[in-house]
């Protein structure tokens, strides 16, 4: 089983010049989103594994695979805590 991630259904996102604002309609909170965060949220419109999200960052930024993975994990941790991202087990 692989854990896959996707946007939380209560997430609404708007971006401008790469950066964005995210709304969580359930908790009625809003968040600023960095350029890489917008990129990851764009990818998360369909379910993604951590490895797939790491590849998204590696295609856009000149960083090591370790750095990209650390960024993805930190992003997912924050987003799950804020209920901006949901996870599911996939076969």
């Amino acid at each position, binding site marked *: 089983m692989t854990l896959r991630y996707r946007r939380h259904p*209560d997430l*609404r*996102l*708007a*971006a*401008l*010049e790469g*950066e*964005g*604002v995210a*709304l*969580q*309609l359930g908790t*009625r*909170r*809003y968040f*600023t*989103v960095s350029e890489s965060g917008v990129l990851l949220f764009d990818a998360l419109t369909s379910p993604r594994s951590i490895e797939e999200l790491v590849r998204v960052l590696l295609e856009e930024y000149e960083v090591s695979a370790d750095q990209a993975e650390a960024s993805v994990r930190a992003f997912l941790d924050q987003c799950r805590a804020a209920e901006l991202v949901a996870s599911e087990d996939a076969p």
Partner: protein
Amino acid sequence: MEPPGALTIAVTVGDPVAPQRDPRPVFRQPGVAIRTGPPLGGVHIWWDAAPASAVLGPAETRAHVTLSPAAVERFEECSRSFLMTVLIFLLRRTAWHHVHGATAIAPSGAGWLIAGNSHAGKSTTAALLASSGWPVGTDDIAFLAPAAERRVAVMGFRSPIALRPGAQELLDRAGGIRLTKRQKVGYRPEDLGGEWVPRVEPAVILFTSVGDAETMATPLGGRETMVELVRWSAWVVLEPEIAQEHLDLIARLAAQARSYRVRLGRDLFERPERLAELVR
């Protein structure tokens, strides 16, 4: 300037529909309790001051309002808070989205939106600009609306510019309309030497606050502008089926206008033109 579609507020006098069995979290605005979204769908609005309720179906442009006899007795107050909230929700269904702001048009032709809370100097600034001959749309209640070529227009709700006694004194203005319950005095833009303008397309957005020092303006980036607009468009977090449309308008407006955080000083009463100079 009218919204694209008819809106109806059907009013009955009787026993308002209390929200006891509504499990949804309450979104509070001054004097008003709002419940929206799943699992019931639609909107329930309750006025605390004297019982009154409104029910709107998820996509309905008709609101079913029930006023208690006590609410009818306080109709002016009811119109300003409860019925205005009902209107805001109806207008959302025609893609007009509320923002807490004042609007004006500079002599250069640039549209301005001045957003902020009720102590941010919006009304005083609107009065000052009208006194300098600027067209002014509203000092407080405005609506973002889609315009041609993916631009965003802001519609002003026509009501008197409401000044506290201190601001009235600083502007050296007599007369006006006594807004007794609000302890303010109201002026139409025409009373101050300006004119009323129903619609502006903002090229400049100011997020204001009031200070003691000289007036200062700091440019804001796109993300900061969006965050500020979300802050002053409180309803954006309500009604999942409408929230994205509202948020998209905010993003488009942030892209179309130059934005500034402005600390308003008393120097503006001597030189109101300084505000336009700072954001040129």
